[in-house]
């Protein structure tokens, strides 16, 4: 056989044209059926900010806590073990005041008389112990009083795709949250759990997601992280939704390319003129955050100011104090994956809004120390303290789990619960 390449190609092309040209319906339908239960992969890391904690990791961490509580080692020394990220020890430029010594910590004290609702996320299991199988798709919001009474789930099954990142309104009557789907939406629901209503922060925009909603001090607006996916370079920007008008403005100066990082956890100043938020850098190919800093955006869009980081530490997940004088933050973003597995040990700091007065208020922080928030009276800081929420004074003293152990563990296995907010009962 002697054929030149052109003839061979021509003949092969004729041959390759023949054959099936229609996909069998069964293959297409099977794929579509599978897609119904298949989550999308996202670079945004919006819905999955905490990985499931494996039981062996829990066991190791529990041992560390026991050792800490027993006072066998200094808290600071324990906190530095296994650290691979930025050093949590602040440098001289922002040398904090000393954190409380272990002897000042009183994990058993509790705050059983504190009034109001604690609103919190809970993943994997129902914290009332009615489920025993860990479900990765279970993302719910629960409420409980500080004395452990009144534990119940907020609007179970509504929306069906789950809830996360709640904030409670200043008057304590409503809760705003984001759905747990990849295309996150915002919802508002009365605190009694009656029908949630979907907010429309994107209003007509395609490829839009919304995350981390937080009420303005007067409750009329919600600041959130608006993710715009439709452009060739997806971005995140701080948005402000007017609840009465259903209109959204964006603070353009806060915008960041998602290829570089993301925004998180906005929090209003009590006078409603500024919003502090975290800008977290993370390359698309890197599973871990490489940097996190706090910025203060002026709501009129005129400027943003960067707050200094504690030397060698990140700054994330800030909350503005009710009197406006202080911002509390953690050195570990709550969305950082691998928490407890080589990530920096979280510590809690405070800083004045003008960037001065960086103070480390606790080191190690009951092996928790993420997602700190002020109580409405400004007298305490609540934070995720490894097994449950904990409270401490603004200077870091009297750190204790809330009503331990009644609110801890929630059954035989821990589902994540964090981002708690305390408000007086309406």
């Amino acid at each position, binding site marked *: *056989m*002697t*054929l030149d*390449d052109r*003839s*061979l*190609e*021509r*003949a*092969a*092309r*004729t*041959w*390759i*044209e*023949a*054959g*099936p*040209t*229609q*996909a*069998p319906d*069964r*293959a*297409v339908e*099977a*794929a*579509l059926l*599978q*897609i*119904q239960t*298949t*989550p*999308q*992969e*996202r*670079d*945004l890391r919006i819905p999955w900010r905490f990985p499931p904690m494996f039981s062996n990791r829990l066991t190791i961490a529990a041992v560390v806590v026991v050792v800490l509580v027993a006072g066998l080692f200094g808290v600071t020394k324990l906190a530095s073990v296994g650290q691979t990220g930025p050093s949590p020890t602040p440098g001289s430029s922002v040398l904090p005041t000393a954190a409380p010594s272990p002897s000042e910590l009183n994990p058993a004290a509790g705050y059983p008389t504190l009034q109001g609702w604690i609103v919190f996320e809970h993943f994997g299991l129902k914290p009332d112990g009615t489920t025993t199988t860990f479900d990765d798709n279970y993302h719910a919001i629960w409420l409980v009083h500080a004395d452990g009474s009144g534990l119940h789930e907020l609007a179970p099954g509504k929306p069906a795709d789950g809830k996360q990142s709640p904030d409670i309104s200043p008057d304590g009557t409503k809760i705003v949250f984001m759905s747990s*789907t*990849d*295309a996150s939406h915002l919802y508002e629901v009365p605190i009694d759990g009656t029908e949630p209503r979907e907010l429309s922060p994107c209003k007509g925009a*395609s*490829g*839009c*997601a919304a995350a981390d909603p937080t009420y303005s001090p007067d409750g009329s607006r919600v600041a959130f992280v608006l993710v715009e*996916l*439709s452009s*060739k370079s997806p971005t995140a920007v701080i948005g402000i939704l007017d609840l009465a008008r259903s209109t959204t403005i964006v603070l353009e100066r806060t915008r960041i390319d998602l290829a570089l990082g993301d925004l998180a956890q906005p929090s209003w100043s009590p006078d409603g003129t500024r919003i502090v938020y975290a800008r977290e850098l993370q390359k*698309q190919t890197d599973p871990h955050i490489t940097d996190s800093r706090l910025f203060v955006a002026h709501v009129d869009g005129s400027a943003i100011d960067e707050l200094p980081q504690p030397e060698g530490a990140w700054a994330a997940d800030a909350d503005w104090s009710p009197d406006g004088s202080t911002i509390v933050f953690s050195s570990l973003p709550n969305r950082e994956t691998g928490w407890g597995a080589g990530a920096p040990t979280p510590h809690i700091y405070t800083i004045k809004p003008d960037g001065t007065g960086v103070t480390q208020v606790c080191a190690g922080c009951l092996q928790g120390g993420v997602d700190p928030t002020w109580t409405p009276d400004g007298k305490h800081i609540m934070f995720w303290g490894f097994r449950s929420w904990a409270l401490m004074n603004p200077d870091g003293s009297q750190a204790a789990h809330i009503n331990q152990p009644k609110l801890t563990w929630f059954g035989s296995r821990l589902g994540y619960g964090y981002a708690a907010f305390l408000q007086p009962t309406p």
Partner: protein
Amino acid sequence: VDRLLIDRARAGDREAFAVLVHQVSDSLYAVACRILRDPELAEDALQNALVLAWRRIPKLRDPDRFEAWVHRILVHACYDESQRARQWTTTVRILPIDGPSTPDGSTELADRDELERAFRQLTLEQRAVFVLHHYVGLPLVEIAELLEIPAGTARSRLHYAIAGLRHALRPLPDALAQEGRLA
């Protein structure tokens, strides 16, 4: 393909993605069939590719490149499917047992069995480039971009695909002699 549908699918809209699936599945299946030469494997590759496309579509940077992007996913699904199938089948070397063709074989080359056997002897990578070039009609530069390989690699794969076909289709005595069987 509707850009709006792609945006909605990227934002997690399953109904929008279903519409996209119906728009591209015939083309994807046809390509998979021609690369894998097995309808059942092609079905599996199509299904896997569609599910993977759903999972990854939020990471699609350029919606205008959706079709190229989904074809890339399909080609890799074909690779995977072929590997999986290989685990369950014994390796069978197909010999040109029918003897030589006539000297001017353009007509005979249209014989499907002969070309089928020859094509199956190509590597999956060579088949993919051949199908994308001669069936889908993509230029080599686009194929290189689609498969994320250097343009030279795409060119050489097509060259070796043609050479492979020629080798498999050449007269039997010549073939066996080259392999040392008649030496």
